[in-house]
């Protein structure tokens, strides 16, 4: 006796509390079991790449802020590195140090949101608010330094828009010592909570080879146990001067590469970022942060590809210059976009509620997916 069952199409989004923006997921479900997931993109498309062609090189920087708006410093960083490579500029030491500290602070802030929303999607709203409270601290450091809380336009080609604020070192040190308590609290409140573990462990298992084949990067790849971090493996700026570890998923609560591992890698990465900041903050040399900024940015003909380790993974800029003041083409390899492709693979055979947990653990930012 074969029972005939029909699948049902459930539209999740674009207006849904936990699709992290205007993502539309077309879920094909059988009861509550997922048969297929189709993400529909483009609701937030703002033509970044096309816009960039009409901009002068330095005018593109504020646009890069708006891609991954939770990690704007990292976006700036990748772009300015690309243009500096094209121009052949060596930036002063001070700038390098400040850039690394900023990028790591931004990584913590971004992971705060990622972890918080992952928890909030699963129902734990309180850790989400604790993390936002602490993210606010980082944002106010940024605000004091460059005047903006979210869209910084801080790293310029060849330098920085402002030197660090006199309070910067003190406040950053305060933050690093304070934030360690938050991580302990977060671990007790959320990471090891039995319900949270049950909801995320063994859910959305991403084997290492699948992750590599899909081109996943960042915590998604490292959650699968692949020790790959551009800061170490294709080192840029001055990351090779610091001593830090790359946390990878070990399957402590379930299988390697499950949602919990992806979540936990982020928590441990925050600790490593704190380590980098603590090492860098005392070594900032004196100097002028704007001395290397070129008067007119007119790179020679050529192409360049640089990649940086953004909180969400490998952020790559491919830029073609035709010798003009405007870039001929800017192509962005957005980590969220690439990581989102895996969603369909991960969700198959899980329940509707798991889609949320998996999506939260992939941690996408729609501004970057759609650009």
């Amino acid at each position, binding site marked *: 006796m074969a029972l005939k069952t029909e699948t049902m199409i459930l539209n999740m989004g674009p207006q849904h509390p936990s699709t992290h923006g205007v993502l539309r997921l077309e879920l094909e479900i059988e009861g509550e079991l997922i048969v297929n997931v189709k993400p529909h993109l483009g609701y937030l498309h703002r033509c970044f790449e096309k816009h960039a062609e009409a*901009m002068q090189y330095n*005018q593109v920087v504020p646009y890069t802020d708006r891609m991954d708006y939770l990690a704007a410093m990292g976006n700036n960083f990748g772009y300015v590195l690309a243009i500096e490579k094209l121009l052949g500029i060596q930036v002063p030491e001070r700038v390098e140090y400040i850039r690394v500290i900023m990028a790591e602070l931004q990584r913590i802030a971004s992971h705060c949101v990622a972890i918080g929303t992952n928890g909030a999607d699963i129902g734990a709203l309180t850790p989400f608010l604790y993390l936002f409270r602490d993210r606010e601290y980082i944002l106010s450091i940024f605000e004091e330094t*460059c*005047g*903006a809380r979210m869209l910084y336009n801080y790293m310029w080609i060849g330098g920085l828009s402002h030197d660090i604020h006199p309070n910067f070192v003190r406040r950053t040190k305060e933050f690093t010592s304070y934030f360690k308590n938050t991580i302990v*609290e977060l671990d007790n409140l959320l990471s*090891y909570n039995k319900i949270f573990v049950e909801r995320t462990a063994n859910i959305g298992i991403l084997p290492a080879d699948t992750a590599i084949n899909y081109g996943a990067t960042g915590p998604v790849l490292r959650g699968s146990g692949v020790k790959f971090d551009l800061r170490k493996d294709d080192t840029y700026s001055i990351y090779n001067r610091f001593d830090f570890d790359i946390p990878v998923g070990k399957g402590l609560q379930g299988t390697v590469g499950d949602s919990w591992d992806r979540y936990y890698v982020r928590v441990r990465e925050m600790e490593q970022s704190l380590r980098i900041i603590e090492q860098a903050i005392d070594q900032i040399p004196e100097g002028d942060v704007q001395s290397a900024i070129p008067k007119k940015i007119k790179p020679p003909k050529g192409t360049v590809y640089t990649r940086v380790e953004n909180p969400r993974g490998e952020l790559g800029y491919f830029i073609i210059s035709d010798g003009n003041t405007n870039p001929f083409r800017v192509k962005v390899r957005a980590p969220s976009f690439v990581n989102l492709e895996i969603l369909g693979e991960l969700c198959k055979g899980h329940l509707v509620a798991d889609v949320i947990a998996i999506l939260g653990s992939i941690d996408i930012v729609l501004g970057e997916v759609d650009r």
Partner: protein
Amino acid sequence: MKEYLKNTWLGIYTVLVGMKITFKHLFTPAVTIQYPEVKLKLPERERNRLYVNIDDCIGCDQCSRACPVSCIDIETVKSIPGEDLGTTSNGKKKAFWVTNFTIDFAKCCYCQLCVFPCPTECIYMTDVFEFSTYERNDLVYQFSNLTKEEAEQKKINFANFQAEKEKQKAAAATAPKTENPSQPNTN
């Protein structure tokens, strides 16, 4: 069976640990800032609404060109000899009437790129962030201190001056060929 009891224990224990943490927070003071009553002291580098000190503006249009979203709109008219525009605070001589200087804050992305090229430091970002309006057009701020009539007058003056010059040129050269009269300078 061992797994079963362990799960039960972990379930109860971790819940109690979490409850302890939230209970502790029940008595920690709130971090909220009661916004309209309490306002944070904003840092001096705060990037909010732009302000243009029009007395110092020389109408060089650099800010408008630096703007990635083209929200600054400047129209200038060359002064005619005999008009005294005064000098800017850092001693530059002004040569243009700024007949129109509008910034559309609905477009502005607060990137501060316009501030750096300014030779007289007359455009800068302030810490004013409360300027919401009911009309989108109210967000277009006019910074020029000339009234519409004055601006028109300046344009007419310049056109007259130009025409005069043309005439003189034509008379002086007595050549049949005339050059294109240059338009009032907008760039």
